[in-house]
């Protein structure tokens, strides 16, 4: 029966919150307290497979990487909707098919838009 498995006493709620806050804050505080802080030059250099560091550690990626990554993420994740459809394809029938074609069509419009806007061109 839904609703019965959570004790309706106030205490667990309180505990949940205190626990949550304690863990959130605690992790930070414990880290600061426990970790030894003895910095010296070598220790602060970034690890590059044992080789002496070459150039600045904070290498600036071209912003184009972000754009491509962003587009990838969006189109990639939209694909998750294809999985449940594929699984339930038998049951959904023609309605599901039309619906999914519409979905893909709308994605396609997005794709055309992005393409025409020149987001895929590296230059």
């Amino acid at each position, binding site marked *: 029966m839904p609703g019965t498995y*959570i004790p309706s006493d106030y205490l667990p709620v309180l505990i949940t919150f205190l*626990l949550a806050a304690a863990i959130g804050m605690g992790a930070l505080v414990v880290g600061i307290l426990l970790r030894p802080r003895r910095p010296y030059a070598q220790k602060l250099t970034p690890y590059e497979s044992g080789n002496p560091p070459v150039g600045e550690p904070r290498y600036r990626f071209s*912003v184009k990487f972000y754009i491509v990554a*962003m587009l990838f993420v*969006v189109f990639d994740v939209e694909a998750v909707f294809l999985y449940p459809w594929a699984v339930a394809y038998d049951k959904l029938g023609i309605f599901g098919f039309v619906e999914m074609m519409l979905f893909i069509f709308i994605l396609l419009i997005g794709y055309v838009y992005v393409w025409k806007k020149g987001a895929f061109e590296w230059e």
Partner: protein
Amino acid sequence: MVPLSWYIILSAVVFSIGVVGFFTRRNLIMIFMSIELMLNSVNISLVAYSHYLQSMRGQVLVFFVIAVAAAEAAIGLAIIIAYYRNNPTIKVDEINLLKG
């Protein structure tokens, strides 16, 4: 079997870490990841409830949350990039042109 309450507590803990991260982190990307943490904590609890209740609604919502989170990530990154082009910082405590 792991009882439901464990998932719920895990979810609450992760959510709280996200909340605390939101206002303790200085880097915009880290703040953004805190938000993602919050969203995923919700996903944990939704899936757990869905399994417990034997109802698919929770999982449907999870799908949507994932998809929306992706769109959100894209837009968020785009906004951060647009910001970074005009302002040489992504440290959150230096972003206070608008105030009062």
